[in-house]
């Protein structure tokens, strides 16, 4: 009786507050008219640093193996090496601050398609079997139109998770910032905001809202010609 199990698990989870997770994810992309630009991805787990300090001392949590700091560092170095060897990417940098538990990946690109390729590499590293990282950005330098596509079935993936794993998203946030060197004419996503200088778009949402479909990541941004 899965429902029964769910009720009892809910009670258990309620009491396992030590594992309650909170993190912030920031996706920042700066795009020039000619299609070149830079990308920065930040995962900030600082709010959970005390739990993470404890978790890193464990072998397993919620049934998942806990990697060591050295393994995490090596994984980041491997990713950096792979991205450095990819066409169209330069100044690749990965940084993991184990004091504050903030991980950063940034690089420059010569075409938006290179970003897609880089993110697919990241997807492969994260064992993304559903190809969620495939072609998530499109830019047309003629019409000055930028497209952000969501390929992830977040709700489906979320439902597959155990209740304990779902807790990780309970207080997590997602922020995307897209910067241009032209003024923004229009944005298609009603929850996204345009900056005071009119050249950046921000979308901020809780992870739960994204998962439950209350906020969409997809956006079409049209720039002034």
């Amino acid at each position, binding site marked *: 009786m899965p429902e029964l199990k769910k009720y009892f698990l809910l*009670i258990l989870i*309620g009491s396992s507050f030590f594992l309650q997770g909170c993190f912030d994810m920031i996706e920042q992309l700066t795009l020039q008219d000619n299609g070149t630009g830079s990308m920065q991805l930040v995962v900030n787990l600082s*709010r959970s640093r005390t739990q993470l300090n404890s978790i890193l001392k464990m072998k397993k949590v919620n049934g998942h193996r806990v990697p060591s700091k050295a393994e995490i560092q090596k994984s980041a170095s491997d990713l950096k090496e792979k991205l450095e060897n990819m066409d169209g990417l330069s100044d690749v940098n990965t940084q993991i601050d184990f004091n504050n538990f903030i991980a950063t990946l940034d690089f420059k690109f010569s075409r938006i398609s290179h970003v897609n390729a880089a993110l697919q590499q990241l997807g492969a590293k994260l064992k993304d079997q559903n190809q969620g990282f495939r072609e998530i950005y499109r830019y047309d330098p003629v019409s000055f139109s930028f497209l952000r596509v969501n390929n992830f079935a977040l709700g489906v993936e979320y439902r597959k998770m155990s209740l304990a794993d779902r807790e990780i998203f309970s207080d997590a946030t997602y*922020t995307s910032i897209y910067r241009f060197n032209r003024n923004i004419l229009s944005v298609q996503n009603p929850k996204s905001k345009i*900056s005071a200088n009119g050249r950046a778009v921000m979308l901020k949402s809780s992870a739960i809202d994204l998962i439950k479909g209350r906020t969409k990541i997809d956006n079409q941004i049209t720039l002034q010609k």
Partner: protein
Amino acid sequence: MKKLVFIVWIFFFSVARSQDFNSRVPQNVFGIVHYAGKMLTNTIPITTLDKYGIVNNDFFKALHLDTAHTLSSTGIDFSSDIYQYALSQDSILGFVTLFHINNLKNFINLVDANYGAELRPLKRDGFEMLYLSANSAIAWNGTNGVFISGVFMGKREEFYNGYSDLDSLVEIAPVDSMDLAPPMQDGDLQSDSIAIVTPQDKGNAEKKKKSTGKTRKKKGSAEPAKGKNKKESNSENEITMEPPVVQDEEVPSDSAHSIPYFPLDNDSYDQWKKRQDSIAKYRVRFFADSISSNHFKNIYPPVSMVSGYDRVMDNSAGLSVWLNTNSVFKLFGGTVLNKSFSPFIEFTDLTDAPAEANEGFCTGINFYFLKDKVHTETRTYTFSDNTRKELKALYKQHARKSTAGFINPQNLGYVSVSFNSEAAIRSYYNQLKKYFSYYNYTKEYSDLIGLYVDLMEIIIDEKGISDLFPGNYLMVLHGLGTKQVKYTRYEYDSNFEYQPVEKIKDQPSPDFSFVMDTRRSDFVQKALALPLKYAEKNNFIYIQHNDYYELKFPEEESVLNSLYFMVADGRFVVTTNIDVIQKVMHGQPFDVDKETSKRIAGNNLAAYVDLKGILNAIKPQIKDEGGKQIAEYLSQNLVAIHAFSGFRKGELVAESNFQISDRFENSLIGIFEMIEKVAEIRKNVDQDEQNKQN
């Protein structure tokens, strides 16, 4: 006259037995669940149960029943006892439910409505039967019924490329041997059903072949062949398929149970798989026939005759569970795991081991649904005098009375464990010897292994170990406080440029103590002084105070501020609470209630969880609306869990009380109400979210 009294007594005894399903549960079961119908329906009427969503949705769904029915209209008599048991027989892992019927018409309606009215029940000797699926069947007479579910756990035939070559060699009986077969209800087998010839049927089949001329070309005689041997004999044209032969005499032997054989015209895996599924299906049907037939004939030697059954099972309890570890070992060693994962699990197979090997336990867990608590009594009885003696030695030691002085009156929970560690180590040597004596791959070398174990016993100083760790432990959760910790967030300006900003938040911080008895305070003192030498080099803060040590954690980075270590009065203490250290230093224990002191000093295990207190402490940390409301509701209705156990009168006895609010009519209704309410809160919160979204 005496004879007459005897006959009358026998008559009453048999009538009583026939009314009680206890006599219809076979002895070879490894687990029983007993629902005391009258007791339960007095506690919670069926009409009340029908109102709960969890019953008419989840329970009915779990049984694959339509939700149009209610418990009252199933025809099943829930006010009489219901038994469920699990057993392994003929390579089937089976689960059986025995129930009384109070309205046959309603019951048949239920079966018709849910399992297909088009299925025609089979008339058996004194009962009717219906195969519901490949894994389940139901049988009934006017007064009671049995639901059987089984999984075939036997080894599958090996599949290999040359398998199809055997096709022309297999001896096959004509389709008409299925004349007496039960109606094929799935339809999947009927199209190409050809019965494999069992040794018993072989003679008949030969005759039929001669008379009907329907058989295929035969190249060899019917000799059992398996796996590699099949291949070898294939070249000699001497092979036949060995049909699955059921050994149990109780299984009806009519040809109704002939296993249909799929002609292997090609070496397709699908054909092979279909055949394996077919074998599995018919094995389950053999099993179902055997169980139902024996049930209605009431010919089992009752399980109550198993030593210790009556000692540990209380049929007056609302719900009772019985487990027989010997049968579990046999099951996991002999039938299930042995077939699936051998040789790794084979050592647990004690089927052929000498009688003294079967020194397992049977355990009875009895649940009593009282006004404001569910009282559970667990009794574990061992069949062996030797094991009983070992257990007595193991549990003869209890915690010191003063141990309770570490428990603060407002604590959120504690666990106290006491056992004789020296006896535990000594018993381990015996367990090791037994383990290797019965393990198939080592029993030949059991003498040699026994010698090594003896050597180990000589080398290990059990007394020394037990002086260091005598076996008394206590863990106390004094409370759940909060601690301020730093973290980094990003803040954005009007152009969405972001900067990291350091912030501070409250983090839950557990306040606990761990206490362990030791008779080697000198050794523990030395161990505690050692980190002083290495603290600076290894970059941690470890300080010696007058009578205790302190390990300080970096400020605002850990949920703990400090851990304090101390040895005093034959105890090693680790705590987050400096008050505990002060109290020990000044000989001023916490003023704990007498009941707690008594439970800790009088049992081998004593545990307490303040459910209300814990829920109140974690409520502020719960972020989502549903979780908040559920925690609030549960904190008003859950109270505490008390548990204690010890070795008494040759049995391990454990008792626990799951205490809830007394605002409910009784604890069983309380549990249903709480489950219902939690589901309702979840549903409402989801609905609210949905409305917001729209």
